[in-house]
């Protein structure tokens, strides 16, 4: 075999996009692993206990997030399923979770399926309310809340991380279109 040495480098869906628009910053979040954890029928209590023990985080109620000192964030996006977000450590991320939870959960690695974009700064509500069908104003959507919806016809998960700071997730396959929807909306309020 010919001696060909190739160095392969993983690229994120938006290649590490980061740009400021006045007070607003739009940037891709990279290096995160995403694993969905689903409950086998009737196993809610068992799984919640196992997750608390293994990941150190409580099972989130739907619409809320929980975090653990071990660096896991759990997003309660639907009944009987949560999405775990944590720093990617190489390899298959679902193996990491499955190791601790065994047959108490169905785990699926979704790291490559999503693009994550953080939009932060003053004016973030004005920028996002034009493309988001949900009321994400401060009085209705508190820090730590999560919702799954659609923005510009693209499925999206919205996490409120801080005052004036949102993490948006959408399919990596349409990452450019999702970013375009956001940046156009941001430019429109400048």
């Amino acid at each position, binding site marked *: 075999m010919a001696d060909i040495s190739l160095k392969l480098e993983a690229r994120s869906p938006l290649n590490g996009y980061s740009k400021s628009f006045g007070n607003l910053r739009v940037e891709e979040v990279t290096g995160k692993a995403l694993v969905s954890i689903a409950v086998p029928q009737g196993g809610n209590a068992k799984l919640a206990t196992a997750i608390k023990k293994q990941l150190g985080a409580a099972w989130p109620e*739907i*619409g809320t997030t929980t975090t653990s000192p071990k660096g896991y964030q759990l997003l309660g*996006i*639907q*009944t009987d399923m949560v999405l775990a977000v944590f720093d990617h450590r190489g390899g298959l991320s679902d193996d990491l979770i499955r190791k601790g939870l065994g047959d108490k959960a169905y785990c699926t690695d979704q790291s490559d399926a999503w693009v994550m974009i953080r939009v932060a700064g003053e004016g973030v509500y004005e920028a996002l309310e034009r493309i988001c*069908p*949900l009321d994400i104003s401060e009085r209705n959507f508190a820090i730590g809340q999560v*919702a*799954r*919806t*659609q923005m510009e016809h693209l*499925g999206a998960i919205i996490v409120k991380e801080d005052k004036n700071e949102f993490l948006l997730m959408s399919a990596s396959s349409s990452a450019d279109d999702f970013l375009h929807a956001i940046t156009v909306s941001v430019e429109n309020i400048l």
Partner: protein
Amino acid sequence: MIINHPLLGPRDAAEFVYLGDASLIDRPDWQSPNAASEFHDYMHLRDNIAGEMRELWFHEQGDRSWLVVTRNTVTHEITNVELARDVALAKQTGASS
């Protein structure tokens, strides 16, 4: 149109997919002696109501739940929204007792 989701609160109807008459929950028993005729009715016979109707909606761009929405097909007024899971479980409990 806004659907008031029992778990998530008010959501735009654009997030949902419409299926149809909620009688689709009542799938006949395939082992029943009249299974063929029951499945015929289940598959093909629907009331086309001008007024209040119970319908199945799927929250595809949301929490992936099935809902039973009571909606007036003339005015679009929605008077009740339940999780289809709860409706089906309640029926099972009712049938077995």
